[in-house]
């Protein structure tokens, strides 16, 4: 089982390296496998296509920051997100431009939304205030907001990690009207 997980990791990390070296559209499964040192067919034991591998990378990067049982899970998540984005800045700077069906935006928002929903499922104790706004809806909306902040941060190297966390928390805790004051 360890060997299988390692191969999957190798393949995903190979994709991460290749994305930083060449355009995404020119990355083939053969190139990913050559980089990982496995035969081409091995890829299909773990992923359906390169978008699936990209999805796995994003999911793995984000999931370590989801601690829904902690008292302040959102701060933990945002802090972890900032750390991951800093650590793999070049990868995310390029990936954020991958568009089309199963583009990066869709993958990122989906996975981040999943994580936020887990937090809401534990911490949202009452639906009475807005029953139509279920946890899935709130999570996706919030994930879209954070994605746009991530994209802005990646395009603006002068913004620091602490600024990203501060602005992300501010947007999570404030209403639109708070910004109009």
């Amino acid at each position: 089982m360890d060997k299988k997980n390692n191969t999957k990791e190798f393949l995903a990390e190979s994709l991460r390296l290749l994305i930083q070296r060449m355009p995404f559209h020119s990355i083939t499964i053969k190139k990913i496998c050559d980089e990982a040192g496995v035969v081409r067919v091995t890829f299909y034991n773990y992923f359906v296509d390169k978008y699936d591998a990209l999805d796995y990378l994003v999911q793995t990067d984000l999931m370590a920051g989801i601690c829904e049982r902690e008292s302040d899970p959102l701060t933990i998540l945002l802090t972890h997100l900032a750390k991951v984005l800093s650590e793999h800045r070049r990868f995310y700077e390029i990936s954020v431009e991958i568009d089309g069906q199963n583009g990066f935006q869709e993958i990122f928002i989906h996975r981040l939304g999943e994580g936020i929903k887990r937090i809401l499922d534990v911490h949202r104790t009452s639906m009475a205030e807005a029953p139509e706004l279920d946890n899935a809806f709130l999570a996706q909306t919030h994930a879209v907001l954070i994605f746009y902040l991530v994209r802005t941060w990646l395009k603006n190297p002068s913004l620091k990690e602490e600024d990203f966390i501060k602005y992300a928390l501010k947007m999570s805790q404030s209403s639109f009207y708070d910004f109009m004051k």
Partner: protein
Amino acid sequence: MNIWMMMLPCIGLALDDFILMMGKGATLKDLTTEKTTAYAGIFGSVNLCAALIGYLVALVFGGMLVVKVNAMICALIFLVLGMWFVHKALTRKGIVERLDLNFNWKQCVKMAIITNITTIFYGMANGMMGSSLILLLLCAYLTCFVAVFVALRIGYAYGYRFGRGIQGVGGALLLMMALSVWFKFLR
């Protein structure tokens, strides 16, 4: 027509199958030699049937025409097919390498029928020129079988590559054939 005049356009047409199945090989998992042989056999058989249909159509209608007209139609068929293949080469895009778990012999038959419709015209061209039916069917089956077998293995091991170039070569062979018929029978 001699054997080379029969083989060249056959190879040209088989290259279309080659590109298609190279792309399919790139999306398959667990492609055993048995499966490869079966899929290549299906393509070869469909190609053989298409060539036979075309030949029989030519026997019925071509017999009403004089030799020069037959040669003109034959050259025209190869010219149109060649231009069509060159057009496909110029407009061809890459494939999406995504695992296909649903591919089976039924899908293979469908793909073979769609791709090998052009072989009907090849069969017609040969029928009009009075080529040997046995040789025609042998060419049609063997070139397609070999092309598909090799393509599947290459796609499976290395992925989809050089589709445009290969399609262009196929088109060029057919255009050469059109010229060859023109010079041999019509000049």
